[in-house]
């Protein structure tokens, strides 16, 4: 039976029931409640129990008492707050000017910059952090060594091992997501105000600061809240930079409580730490929704077919390009060079004549032995299954929310947005606990499926925001025409709506696929030998002392990514801005 026939049969079944749409929407709501609610219920349960998953036992507040009567917890909360705030600020310092330059001006090399930004996403943050250690470590960092030689300084000029250092590295790594989130707002901004400013003799910089930034402030604030929530949960930089210097944040405490470097796992304590993280996430999500709704009041986007004029940068063209290149150097070029350097040496070392003499390609030849095939297969599964699952659910949710009159559609939209408020590490720990404690009912612990589920839940909020946006743009007349011709509701969705929104969905699919590829926090928290993926291999190799081997893998992956992304960029240009996800 062909797909169209199947859809037709399903459609007739749904329509025949009369309340088919309502039932379908109800089922979808129940599915989402289950997907999102059960891991959170597990976090709550584990926070109220001592011992290991599956051991049962009475409910107790002992974990909360232990955690919140410890003065160290409040230091960790302060660290987390400072780290997340610093991260967001660093991101915006780079992302906002770059969005304006790429979306509104005649900056040269835009296509190349897009590809390089996408490539930057694919360099694992762990590897980039190692590169930053080589540059900015107080003792061995090249920058500090040069500062000593040039200025005769006795103390290091810069150090990574503090909260500003951590925030800087994490903030730089957040620029691409922030860029793509802000791109839509800048791309479609009405240039009338800008042109009025130029006519009045206001400089381009002043116009950017006094016109563009205020107009897009709600969008920027929305992105800030989103990034703040993400920064609460990230693990990579706190693990490599913070932990060695005993700078703990919530995510590192939750991770080490379930994967302790010494002693045995303490899931209850992880749950108690998680409670405060969840509360923070829910509060931030509330503000995020408010900001997004508030932002609509400021909409200055004109109608269909509108295309804003590019602003000529004139003599500022090259300084602007230099700014972008500075960022790309930090995000892509320097980490890649460090990777290349490390991959060619027998063991990690700083540049010297001896090091150059010892260079070889032996680690490239041993990649297969060290990495094996399984992590690559798992990564491929992740990169396909997560965006596919997320986008299928997102399309269905958006269709109910945007195109139907089901009376609880607002609630469905809110439920779909909830994962945005749940830090990834908490979701993963909850799912892990579920898999261990109730393995007979949820037999996916230790498989790639559990990571696929965690990622899918995590990005469903992002997916539905995207699909809501693109579905609104499709006029109802087309669907009505389909229905008048006798097509069932699913047929209309399949044959009319989906083809029209395919470009937006495809963009989001690619974007989620890349996010899934580089995500490490959830993959690590749920990691076992059978579900290793490339991002967790990097962490494992760093712990094993196999840095040259993982650097060789990194170089190969980056080169592969350049080829694939370049090809996709060319091949799918017609489908819209690649990777914009907006």
């Amino acid at each position: 039976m062909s797909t169209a026939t199947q859809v037709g049969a399903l459609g007739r079944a749904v329509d025949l029931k009369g309340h088919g749409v309502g039932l379908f929407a109800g089922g979808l709501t129940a599915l989402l409640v289950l997907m999102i609610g059960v891991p959170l219920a597990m976090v709550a349960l584990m926070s109220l129990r001592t011992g290991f998953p599956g051991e049962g036992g009475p409910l107790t507040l002992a974990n909360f008492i232990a955690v919140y009567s410890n003065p160290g917890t409040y230091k960790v909360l302060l660290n987390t707050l400072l780290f997340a705030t610093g991260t967001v600020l660093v991101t915006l310092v780079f992302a906002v000017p770059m969005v304006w330059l790429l979306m509104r001006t005649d900056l040269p090399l835009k296509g190349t910059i897009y590809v390089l930004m996408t490539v930057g996403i694919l360099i694992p943050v762990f590897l980039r952090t190692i590169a930053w250690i080589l540059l900015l470590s107080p003792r061995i960092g090249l920058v500090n060594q040069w500062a000593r030689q040039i200025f005769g300084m006795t103390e290091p000029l810069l150090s990574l091992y503090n909260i500003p250092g951590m925030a800087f590295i994490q903030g730089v790594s957040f620029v691409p997501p922030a860029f793509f989130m802000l791109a839509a707002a800048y791309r479609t901004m009405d240039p009338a105000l800008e042109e009025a400013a130029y006519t009045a003799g206001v400089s381009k910089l002043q116009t950017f600061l006094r016109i563009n930034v205020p107009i897009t402030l709600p969008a920027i604030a929305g992105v800030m809240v989103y990034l703040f929530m993400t920064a609460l949960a990230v693990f990579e930089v706190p693990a490599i930079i913070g932990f060695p210097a005993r700078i703990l944040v919530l995510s590192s405490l939750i991770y080490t409580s379930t994967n302790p470097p010494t002693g045995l796992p303490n899931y209850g304590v992880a749950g108690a730490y998680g409670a405060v993280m969840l509360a923070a996430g829910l509060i931030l999500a509330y503000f995020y929704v408010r900001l997004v709704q508030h932002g609509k009041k400021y909409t200055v986007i004109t109608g269909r077919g509108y295309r804003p004029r590019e602003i000529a940068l004139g003599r500022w063209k090259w300084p602007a390009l230099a700014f972008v290149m500075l960022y790309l150097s930090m995000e892509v070029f320097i980490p890649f060079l460090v990777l290349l350097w490390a991959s060619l040496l027998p063991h990690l070392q700083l540049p010297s004549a001896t090091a150059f003499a010892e260079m070889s390609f032996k680690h490239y030849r041993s990649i297969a032995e060290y990495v094996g095939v399984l992590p690559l297969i798992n990564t491929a599964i992740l990169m396909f299954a997560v965006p596919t699952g997320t986008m299928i659910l997102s399309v269905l949710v958006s269709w109910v929310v945007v195109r139907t009159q089901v009376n609880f559609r607002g609630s469905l939209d809110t439920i779909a947005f909830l994962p945005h408020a749940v830090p990834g590490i908490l979701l993963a720990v909850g799912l892990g606990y579920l898999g261990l404690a109730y393995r007979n009912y949820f037999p996916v612990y230790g498989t790639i499926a559990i990571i696929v589920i965690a990622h899918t839940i995590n990005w469903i909020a992002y997916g539905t925001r995207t699909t809501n946006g693109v579905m609104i743009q499709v006029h109802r007349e087309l669907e009505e025409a389909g229905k008048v011709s006798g097509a069932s509701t699913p047929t209309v969705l399949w044959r009319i709506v989906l083809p029209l929104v395919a470009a937006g969905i495809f963009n989001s699919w690619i974007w989620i696929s890349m996010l899934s590829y580089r995500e490490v926090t959830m993959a690590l928290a749920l990691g076992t030998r059978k579900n290793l993926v490339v991002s967790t291999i990097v962490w494992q190799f760093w712990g094993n002392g196999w840095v040259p081997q993982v650097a060789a893998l990194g170089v190969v992956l980056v080169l592969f990514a350049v080829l694939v992304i370049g090809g996709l960029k060319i091949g799918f240009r017609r489908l819209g801005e690649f990777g914009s996800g907006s």
Partner: protein
Amino acid sequence: MSFAPRLSVRGMRGIMKDIKALIFALGLSIASLGGSPGLFAAAVDDLVAAAKKENAFEFYAPSTLTPQGAQALGAAFNKKYGLSIKLQYNPSGNMTRDIGKLVGLAASGTPPEWDLMVVTDAHHATLWLKKLHQTFDYKSLGVDAKAIQFDNGAVSFANQFVLPAYNKQLVAPKDAPKSWDDLLNPKWKGKIGVSSATHHFGRLAAGPWGEEKTTQFVNALTKQDLILGRLGEIYNRLLLGEIVVAVSLSDSEIKSETNKGAPVVHAEAVSPLLAPAYHAGVPKNAAHPKVAHLFAAFLTTPDAQKIWEKFAGQSSTLIPGTTAYKYVQGKKVVYLSQDQAETVDRLSREYGKIFGFTSL
């Protein structure tokens, strides 16, 4: 004439007697497992036949063995017993974390991820205390009872050596630490790292130093602005020069095939020398226990010992003539005995908290 390392803690006479017997027994086990027909051939044959049916196994071992080393071991194992078992190597990134994970899995009734675990005696002590070994009568395979640890739970086949380590490009040998107490010298402040292998200090506490002195030492170390990390991370940071001294580093990192030529060396003048033993043991409910038990016994054979030493850098202090045996002559060495297991397990966690590896 001394045939065994000097021991600092227990009654010398009794221990010497034990070790001499163990040397003899290990030699015997090696001879019997070496393929010569003897008392144990029938048991070995039975186990080989059972192993053949399992066909594969998950081998957890130190990352310093390297995939090439694991492959070489697998090939030698198959050749010796006429098998074609598929060995899946799982390099350890953090033995303590993985043992903790295994304990957690066991509590939930989930089978272990690995069939055979090569971890240190301190880590096997945790499994033994939790009764998580799948025991086997290794004696029936020709492995002497004295080489068999934790009530038939594990087989001892190699020793690490643990001492403070330094980067010789950054610290001249004359300036390197000469004693454990030298690590408290303010000149190392901010330039010294400690790994999550806190059982190293547990051994000192259960052994020659006692709990009070060791705890004081650990507390004093925390005043040195220590950099924390897993063993491999601490090694990397030492290699790069981010730290110039590591409080304790095993020769697994220093002697590994992949790390040859690196400027990281032990502070050889420091005493006592810690000698954690590598034990091979099968966790309870392992999916392929027969292959795993056979492989554990195989690790004591000369073939396996040669491969292990080539790739991972260790041999057994108990077998006369081995590199490890020669190395410990005249040195004050700290071993872990089964009766110290509980103390070491408890103190490893306590010291982990003091250093800041865990919060509660």
